[in-house]
């Protein structure tokens, strides 16, 4: 049977492979390199000789991890891909043959045996490649991994603790931090979180976890910290020392909306920024604004803690003012994305309407006649601040009688009173510190939290790094009908995240559409 080969024009004879007899068993077969049928070849040569067929592996029943000696524990599910890879890695001589296929053979889960069927290929005799499958049996032995055994022995055992403190009288910073931590999952590895009087304690099982937490904190608030360690145990023979590490972290006490009187050195260092400044934003830098010149300066943690000044008046001392008249702005500036306008206003305190003040304010862009505003009453306040006293004595015209900080939306909020907000927030699992005698007043906490939420509503830049979730009980129709005048600022619905609900029928994904800030 010859066929014409068109390409080369050559005469090519079709070759049919004949059959020879297997040299051992005599069964006719096509010739191969060994000239033996597959069965005879298999009986002759065992390529799985010298390969491990049974092996012991260790499993931690608490955390579901398998031991890869000497010290690594690998988490893997029963009959998963990771487990297969792990099992194959444990076999010793597998590099002598080529692994073609591996799969699990079903074993009863509580039999403590894993069976894997491996198919290997190797070259035998004169170049014949033989493929053979063989089972490998793994005996699973239970052995608690180190971390689980340490945890079992003492569940409260911590190795590193971070004591976060801010020496101010309110907890606004901690509320905000709590939301930030939740958003970035920074405290996911904390064993325990405890709330104490002026701060929060975080306990970690590992020094590096505590370190990474502090790095996270350093990026969001200006902090100063120190590290101390305490010897727990000491192995004489191998000179291994076990310590407990404690980090004492202090957040700078300057908060948003604080009134600060800068010490003269700091003021001149910042280019003679008027010693009376308002703190407008605290992130890893402190932004301070001089309300008279609309100039702004940034202080980072190191600069702040070098001088360590405190605020003269805090937001607790804010007083409500009525705004009677707002004059045209004499100057405008955009500072750090925020627009400010310098103008003169006529204001009077709510408590004492009779006494009018004519002051300069940086809120000229939002205040209108008839508004309410919150500000510091320097005229009648009893300020306990050395710098302020020095400044008061040094300046000719006296201090400004009032410095307005923000617009007040109390009237508008009256209408919404009692109605639920459009958003909710999540909370960290914190323990309350019972030991020091319950100085924590639950009602006070509630009020503070309410103020914090109002803060969030009013300031979009605060919401930037926080996740807010849609309130399931909230009904939209009520606020949609509010058409009269200017409503209180609320969080636009696009910023809210739907919470991940795992129901039996379907999974709702996170439909997050965060606005670009």
């Amino acid at each position, binding site marked *: 049977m010859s066929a014409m080969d068109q390409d080369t024009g050559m005469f090519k004879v*079709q070759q*049919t*492979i*004949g*059959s*020879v007899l297997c*040299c*051992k068993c005599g069964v006719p077969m096509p*010739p191969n390199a060994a*000239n033996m049928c597959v069965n005879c070849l298999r009986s002759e040569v065992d390529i799985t000789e010298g390969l491990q067929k049974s092996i012991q592996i260790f499993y931690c029943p608490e955390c579901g991890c398998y031991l890869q000696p000497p010290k690594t524990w690998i988490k893997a599910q029963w009959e998963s891909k990771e487990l297969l890879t792990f099992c194959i890695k444990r076999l010793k001589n597998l590099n002598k043959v080529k692994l073609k296929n591996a799969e699990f053979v079903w074993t009863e889960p509580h039999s403590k045996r894993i069976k894997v069927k491996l198919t290997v290929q190797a070259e035998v005799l004169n170049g014949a490649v033989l493929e053979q499958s063989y089972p490998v049996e793994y005996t699973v032995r239970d052995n608690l991994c180190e971390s689980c055994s340490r945890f079992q022995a003492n569940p409260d055992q911590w190795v590193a603790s971070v004591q976060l403190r801010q020496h101010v009288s309110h907890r606004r910073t901690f509320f905000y931090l709590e939301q930030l931590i939740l958003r970035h999952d920074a405290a996911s590895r904390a064993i325990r979180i405890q709330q104490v009087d002026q701060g929060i304690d975080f306990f970690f099982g590992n020094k590096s976890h505590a370190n990474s937490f502090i790095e996270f904190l350093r990026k969001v608030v200006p902090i100063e910290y120190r590290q101390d360690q305490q010897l727990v145990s000491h192995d004489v023979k191998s000179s291994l020392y076990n310590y407990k590490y404690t980090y004492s972290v202090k957040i700078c006490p300057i908060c948003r909306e604080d009134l600060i009187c800068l010490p003269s050195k700091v003021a001149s260092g910042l280019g003679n920024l008027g010693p009376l400044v308002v703190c407008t934003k605290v992130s890893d830098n402190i932004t301070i604004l001089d309300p008279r010149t609309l100039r702004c300066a940034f202080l980072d943690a190191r600069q702040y803690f070098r001088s360590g000044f405190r605020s003269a008046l805090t937001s607790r001392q804010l007083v409500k003012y009525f705004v009677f008249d707002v004059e045209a702005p004499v100057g405008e500036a955009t500072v750090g994305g925020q627009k400010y306008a310098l103008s003169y206003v006529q204001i009077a305190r709510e408590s004492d309407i009779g006494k009018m003040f004519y002051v300069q304010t940086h809120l000229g862009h939002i205040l209108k006649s008839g508004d309410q505003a919150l500000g510091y009453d320097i005229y009648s306040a009893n300020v306990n601040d050395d710098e302020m006293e020095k400044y008061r004595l040094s300046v000719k015209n006296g201090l400004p009688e009032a410095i307005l900080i923000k617009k007040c939306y109390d009237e508008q909020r009256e209408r919404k009173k009692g109605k639920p907000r459009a958003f909710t927030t999540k909370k960290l699992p914190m323990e309350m510190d019972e030991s020091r005698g319950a100085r924590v007043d639950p009602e006070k906490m509630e009020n503070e939290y309410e103020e914090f939420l109002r803060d969030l509503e009013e300031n979009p830049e605060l919401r930037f790094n926080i996740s807010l979730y849609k309130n399931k009980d909230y009904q939209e129709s009520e606020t949609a009908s509010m058409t009269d005048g200017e409503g209180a600022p609320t969080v636009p619905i696009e910023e809210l995240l739907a919470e991940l609900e795992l129901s039996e029928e379907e999974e709702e994904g996170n439909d997050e559409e965060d606005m670009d800030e």
Partner: protein
Amino acid sequence: MATRLQFENNCEVGVFSKLTNAYCLVAIGGSENFYRFCFAHLSLSLCSFTSVLVFMFENSAFESELADVIPIVKTSLGGTRIIGRLCAGNKNGLLVPHTTTDQELQHLRNSLPDSVVVQRIEERLSALGNCIACNDHVALAHTDLDKETEEIIADVLGVEVFRQTIAGNILVGSNCALSNRGGIVHPHTSVEDLDELSTLLQVPLVAGTVNRGSEVIGAGMTVNDWTAFCGSDTTATELSVIDSIFKLREAQPSSIVDEMRKSLIDTYV
């Protein structure tokens, strides 16, 4: 009847010996056991009942089989022992390579019967046993053999010469074992090639192996019209194939057909 044996613990019998219908060449080995075999084996081919206790006074397997039948010549070629692969011959003649010394040539001329012409040829491919496969009527030659050599082969051996390859292999002498009654070729030979060769050689051919799957048939065994010798690794299957294709079961050396020999017991083993 095919026999299994070893030369100095090596199963490649065809390398160290050359068997034809008129004579047999063997290499000079260290042990005489190469040649040792029962007389019974020889007689078995003649008559069915023969005692196993037969002993021979010439302890040589070849000699016991063939002693009275054909001359067995111990020789070397060019000082080497691989005589099976260096020379090619049949009952008419023997061709030796140019590396053969004069003494060896003379020794061969003396020992072999006069009907056998011993000729030394000048040929670049000096392993004639690898290049030429022949029986008494026809020969296969390496494709690159010289024209003169081809003519000498046709002359001396009295055969028709065909240049061929076996299973794509040009060393025809090592890849096949040929006798006047049949032949075995390399196991990878295709069916078409087998048919073609069979037509050329006019004998039945089969693709098979020897020495437990070895593909080099010519080196693994040596054969003539009534007997064959294979390496001791040869399996029973291969042996049966050899027996059937060379028709050895009914074979009888023509010179002994008329003579019936009785077994002689000289000494007990």
